[in-house]
């Protein structure tokens, strides 16, 4: 995924700030990654390299950790984040069908972010409201009993919101930037 304008500087600044308060021990690696992800929303390659340097750990080890643990993400979160619950209760009433419907509508796979960074789609293990299964979390709002028709409804609402925010903004504000 390409970096946006000014994102490189933001990454470097965030990593520096977190490393400043770090004990620089290997033990601090996971908390450091968590803090950087909390600032940036994800862990771009550049951030991983800088953290490896800062804690004196091979970059491969950092990448190994990031891909080992479910919490860390390699893709930036979309402006709108959709998390589909695939806990046991949700799976049994068709959570996978819901996930598939989102994949079809967003034209991305689970774990990915759309190129315009508007949408990201994830599966999560259990949101903890099994009575409302199948459950989807759309930008922190929990939606219960989501059918494919409801998926269409959710996507329409998000697209509508986007259209409105675009017309409110300056027309020439580009999102992407070659780097």
């Amino acid at each position, binding site marked *: 995924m390409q970096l946006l304008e000014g994102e490189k500087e933001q990454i470097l600044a965030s990593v520096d700030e977190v490393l400043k308060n770090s004990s620089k*021990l*290997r*033990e*601090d*690696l*996971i*908390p450091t*990654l*968590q803090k950087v992800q909390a600032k940036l929303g994800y862990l771009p390659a550049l951030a991983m390299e800088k953290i490896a340097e800062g804690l004196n*750990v091979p970059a491969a080890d950092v990448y*190994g*950790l990031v891909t*080992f*643990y*479910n*919490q*860390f993400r390699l893709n930036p979160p979309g402006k709108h984040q959709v998390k589909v619950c*695939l*806990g*046991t*209760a949700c*799976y*049994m009433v*068709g959570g996978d*069908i819901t996930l*598939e*419907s989102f994949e*079809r509508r967003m034209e991305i796979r689970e774990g990915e972010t759309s190129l315009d960074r508007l949408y990201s789609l994830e599966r*999560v*293990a*259990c*949101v*903890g*409201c*099994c*009575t*409302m299964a199948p*459950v989807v979390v759309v930008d922190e709002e*929990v939606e*219960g009993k989501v*059918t*494919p*028709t409801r*998926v*269409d409804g959710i996507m329409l609402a998000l697209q509508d919101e986007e259209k409105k925010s675009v017309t409110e903004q300056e027309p020439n504000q580009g999102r992407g930037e070659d780097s």
Partner: protein
Amino acid sequence: MSSLTPKELYNKLSQEAISHDEAHQEKTRVMVGTATCGVAAGALKIKADFIREVEAKNLQDEVDIVEVGCIGHCYAEPLAIIAKPGHPAICYGHLDDGLVHRLVEDFLAGDDPSYEYAMAALERNDVFPTFEDFPRGVYEQKLILEQCGFIDARDINSYIARDGYSALAMALEEKPGWILDEVKASNLRGRGGAGFPAGRKWEACIRSKGEEIYVICNADEGDPGAFMDRSILESDPHLVIEGMILCAFAVGARKGYLYIRAEYPRAVTHVQEAIDQARVKGLLGESILGTDFSFDLEIFQGSGAFVCGEATALVNSMEGKMGMPESRPPRLAQKGYRGKPTVLNNVKTFAYVPLIIRKGAKWFKEIGTPENPGTAVFSLVGKVVNTGLVEVPMGTTLRQLIYEVGDGLPNGKEFKAVQIGGPSGGCLPETALDVPIDFDSLQDAGAIMGSGGLVVMDEDDCMVSVARYFLEFTQHESCGKCTFCRLGTKHMLDILTGITKGEGDDETLNLLEELAEDVRDGSLCNLGRTAPNPVLTTLKYFRDEYKAHILEGRCPAKVCRDLLLYYIEPPKCSKLCNVCVGSCPTEAIFTRDDGLKEIDQEKCVKCDNCLKACPDEYNAVVKLSPPVLPSEKERKAK
């Protein structure tokens, strides 16, 4: 050293807490259940509704609106308890803005408790039944969940006012060995799943005679569909903290960690606040309650890897490495975190300790069965009427748990299986329902106690698909260290995926079984050793279902999508209704020349939408398995 004894210091804290608490009790209290489950169901909005309505009636000086944890009745979320002086405290469920408006107007402003909307009262009274009067109340016995949802988790006074930390004050006046003796005498078995006696673990750690000893609480609850540990940490964090302090005093540790999943942000916040408040009260940190015993706690946020529930993997992950298990021995009690002796117990195990110290080992042993004293905590989910968090004495049968506590299956469906222990557990059939719930009996039946997820399944659930689901989970979570777990589970998953598509022959099931046994025997840790359990138990109890998939290309429960098709039965279809056409996300449904609807099988993605959309008076959409249209069937017959 202080001139006062721990008990004297504690009495001062306790009096402060009680007067603080009583000041609150003079007012009307609205307690909204805002554990994660409640929040997901909209509890924060309900709380805002209460605040708005109360302000509209100008009652804010007489009414306190507070957040409490989970009382375990998840099926009725969002819910709130209203305690108004002069009335018994009453719990209301299924709240929405209209009901909130009504309760504020009639009960808070007026004096009518609106019993028609009440679920139950919380204390015995002459007007309204309590939770104990429910069938569920007969079987349930709450020990570690007793205060969950009734106290303010974010105020230490709320805990202290109900004898919280009194066990600590009591223990500090005794020798550390006294705690160990009590815990050993109570025969408390570890609630993480394996059931290893906690006292023996602690003793092994003491025998290691390390200069530094660590106490770690395992709150890396990773099973899909299990949320007991999260609820306890969110609703009653001090109970766990007190248990850890007691353990630290018994084994001589000065430092402890709570390993909590980062996916549990509310639990992390509540526990951090609890630690800070306990420090201020002198219950944690340097010279606890004026003694020369010092102990401090810190949270380590786990990054979400199922395998980190395994002790050695958890320690590796705390040291900044990948969470891969090591071979044991050495056990953690000899060589754990930073190479030092370490006690690692589950959230629930620590939560029992203050109760055992306060009420005695004898009291604890009288609950449950002799070999398995105490209670079992389950998150009861799936096809059961009363989903939620339940606590029953060990030895309760599965039948009692599902049919009495859970009130049976909804919609008059037939029971098929119950899955216990999550991805490491097994599926048990109807014939096993009279198995008592304890560590040993469940293991004999082929399942495990696990950490306590319990999923009920009915006739609409396909056992092959369920086995595949759990295996997909463990396969994804396998750390990759052992070949059998890494590749064996992958190969098993491929076979199972094949079966859900009707692939395979007579040999397939034998191969699957053989592979499952190899994975079990060839893996180092319990993730790999138990990963085949869902497959082995379903093969044992539901072999016919597997055979139907392979030999007939039929999924009996009509779940496996490659083995079914959607069909609109012409005699049932109303020509005047267009609901299914509109519901189809891929425009596969069209109107024929004769006005009836039909599904274009090429376009259909089998999303189940039209079946749900078709009005109940027609129910014209059906699933056919094997996927053969009636017209084709006729043609073949000719």
